[in-house]
């Protein structure tokens, strides 16, 4: 399925207190990581509603990464445990919908782990690269739907009325 030259589009939700700071740290320490990632800062990984993830896929993301504080370190006490459970729930659901669950990844990275976060991002980009493009909006483009069918229907009705009259 992997295509030559395919550049995955990744959306990453990063917790303000740890992972986003870690990505900053990676930047200031000149650690390089893949430019394929669009980062979205959230106040806590627990803010990442499952609908954000599904919307990202529906709008063209090939992979979604969620990064938060290590379990036990969440600034909002235990919101990241919810993240952990939502992640499990989402992966299970994605599987049933025909999306490889590997397209969603959860990473714990503290503010000091710039290097680790950069590596995790690169690894994820490489893994999604192997999975190939998702192109989700294509799944509801209906091959049987024809714009001209509606004119045909109208014409047929008109014709039927003439026969009756």
């Amino acid at each position, binding site marked *: 399925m992997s295509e030559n030259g395919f550049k995955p589009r990744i959306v990453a939700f990063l917790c303000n207190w740890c992972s986003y700071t870690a990505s900053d740290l990676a930047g200031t320490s000149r650690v390089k990581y893949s430019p394929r990632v669009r980062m979205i800062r959230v106040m806590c990984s627990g803010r990442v509603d499952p609908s954000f993830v599904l*919307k990202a896929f529906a709008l063209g993301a090939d992979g979604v990464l969620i990064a938060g504080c290590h379990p036990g370190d969440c600034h909002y006490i235990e919101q990241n445990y919810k993240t952990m459970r939502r992640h499990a729930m989402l992966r299970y659901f994605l599987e049933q919908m025909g999306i490889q669950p590997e397209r969603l990844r959860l990473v714990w990275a503290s503010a000091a782990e710039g290097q680790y976060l950069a590596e995790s991002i690169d690894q994820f980009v490489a893994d999604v690269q192997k999975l190939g493009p998702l192109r989700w909006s294509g799944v509801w483009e*209906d091959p049987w*739907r024809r714009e001209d069918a509606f004119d045909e229907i109208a014409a047929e009705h008109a014709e039927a009325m003439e026969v009756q009259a």
Partner: protein
Amino acid sequence: MNGEPKGKLALYWAASCGGCEIAVLAINERILDVDALFDIVFWPVAVDAKVHDVEKMADGSIDVCLFNGGIRTSEQEYMARLLRKKSKVLVAFGSCAHEGCIPGLANSTSRRRIFETVYHETPSTENTDHVEPQPSTAVPEGTLHLPVFYDTLRTLDQTVKVDYYLPGCPPEADRIWDAITAIVENNLPPPGSVIGAETTVCQECPRKRNEKKVKKFYRTWEIIPDEETCLLEQGLLCCGIATRAGCGARCPQVGSPCIGCYGPNEGIHDHGARMMAALASTIDSNDPEEIDRIIRDGIPDPVGSFYRFGLAASHLRRKKEAMIET
């Protein structure tokens, strides 16, 4: 409305079960008030006006059209476009038009699979010639046309612009009456709104709620829930927490979990995503393996459990399947 000319009302059905047609009659004798206020210019179930009569009407000449059903075929799409053009106010009436409902749950399969099941596999089917409906068939007299059956069911507002939504499978009689009254009194919310309550079924549910901590989910036949406690706390997948109020919590009142027929509550687009978020909060474990076990053992069918009514309207809309077509 005294002395004013009567309004023009149309009702139509597309991919639906017919229940919404019955639901209109469930307003009982108030249907006579509707008749006093409106001329019903088109209603295939009850009135003898034909599609051609609608085609001849001036654009915008129908005041209100209550449209139930999702869009599965080219003919239904044609009717949705036609009635949109002819109506001032188009209401997506009931869950099917609003969010796809059970017909939209077939977005978890494909046109090919549906045809296989319906025309070949069901035990009562005898179809040795492998006949399937064709969009056009040549016969000596000319060419016969059948509507094209789409791969994906769309909601009404994925097809044409919708002015209002009336949720529910089917909408409750009193809510229908509220909507009719709002229309007649010109007391409607801003266009694009759902006509109904904003809160969740939980708000209408008399069951006692405590902190929700669930170690195991059950299917309805596995336990007999107690009479008083919240069903979700007892491990039943009750969608009341993510579902719009309006029914008076009918199902949990009689010991059956809400399956979500009123769609998501106000401000929520993706019903199932909301359910997943809410359920994840209730799971009583912080251990990834145990969490996985609780989910997989207790929820054998996440799409059917979280998106029974809202799959077609969800962000993902349908399941991805390898397209096989003959």
